C-alpha cells in the first residue's frame, strides 16, 4: 500500500529552469543572427566562435556553414550555462507553471517572429541605427 510520505515532494523549479534556459538559447540565436547580418566585421566575430564545428569554413562546391556555426555555439553555451545556474537556484522552489506557460509560449512566439525578416528587419535596422552600427 502506498502512503503519501512515500511520494517525495517535487518542485516545478527545475522544469522552469530547463525551459527558461532554452528560451534564452533561442534568443541568443536570434540576436547573434541579426548582429552577424549588420556588417562583415561583426559576422567575422560571430563566426570565430564556431570554428570548432567541422565545415565551419571552406569554399567551392562543397561550401561551408559560415557564421551559422558561431550562432549555434553561442546558443548552446547560453543554453547549458543558464540551465545549470537556474537549476541550482530553483531546485527546491515551486514556481507557478500556469504563469510560466503563458510567458514561455508568448516568448517563443516573439522569438520565432524575430526570425521572420519582413517583421524583424525594420526593428533590427532601427536599433542598429540608434547604436550607430553600419
Amino acid at each position, binding site marked *: 500500500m502506498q502512503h503519501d510520505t512515500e*511520494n*517525495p515532494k*517535487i518542485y*516545478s523549479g*527545475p*522544469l522552469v529552469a*530547463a*525551459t527558461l534556459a*532554452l528560451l534564452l*538559447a*533561442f534568443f541568443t*540565436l*536570434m540576436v547573434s*543572427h541579426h548582429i552577424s547580418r549588420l556588417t562583415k566585421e561583426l559576422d567575422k566575430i560571430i563566426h570565430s566562435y564556431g570554428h570548432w*564545428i567541422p*565545415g565551419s569554413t*571552406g*569554399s*567551392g*562546391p*562543397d*561550401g*561551408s*556553414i*559560415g557564421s*551559422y*556555426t558561431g550562432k*549555434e555555439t553561442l*546558443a548552446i553555451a547560453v*543554453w547549458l550555462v543558464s540551465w545549470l545556474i537556474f537549476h541550482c537556484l530553483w531546485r527546491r522552489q515551486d514556481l507557478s*507553471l*500556469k504563469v*510560466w*506557460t503563458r510567458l514561455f*509560449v508568448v516568448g*517563443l512566439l516573439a522569438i*520565432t517572429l524575430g*526570425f*521572420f*525578416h*519582413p517583421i524583424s528587419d525594420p526593428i533590427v535596422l532601427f536599433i542598429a541605427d540608434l547604436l550607430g552600427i553600419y
Partner: protein
Amino acid sequence: MPTGEYRHDHFGKAVIRTQIAIALSLLLLLPAANFFYPTAYNLKAGIHGVSAILAVIVGTYLTHRAIPLIKGMQVRFESLRLWVMTATVLNLAGAVSGNWIYMRYRGQEGPRDWILAHVPSFHNVLMEFKEFASLFPFPLMVAACFALFYYGKSMQYRRDIARFLGITLLISWSFLMLGFVAGLVLAKLRFV
C-alpha cells in the same frame, strides 16, 4: 444509452496497423529516393531527409501522447519516456545532418545561389527562418526528456507539470512541421 469506452477488436487493430505500416513505408520512400538522385550529395541529402521525416513521424505520434498529459490523465510512463528519448535522438540526427547538407546549400553554384538569382525571397525569408526554427525541436525534446527522468513517475501527481510537458511536446511538433515544410519547399525549388 450506455457510453462505455470504445475498444478496437483484433481485426480493427490489424487494419489500423497495416494502414500505418503502408503509409509510413510510402512516406519514407520520399526522402529515401534522395539516395538514388544523380548528384555527389545524394548520401547527405538522403540521410537528412530520412532523419527529418522520422523525426516528424515520431513527433506527430507524440502529439497524441501529449493530449492525455494535458488533460491530466494517467499515462504509460515508461513507454512515453522511450518515445520522447527516440524523438530527441532523431531530432539531433536531423539537426546534425541539416548542418551537413547546409554546407552544400551554401556552396558554389549550390541551391542558395540559384534561389537568390531566381526567387531571392525564398532564401531571404524562408531559408533564413527555416535554418533556425529547425533547431528548436531538439532542445525542446531534451527539456521534455529531462522532466521525464528528473521527476520520474511522481510527475503524474503534479497535474501542472504533466500539462506543461504535454504543451512542450506540442510546441516541439509545431516547429518540426515549420522546418519540414520549409525544407520541402526549398528542396522542391532546387535540389543539392
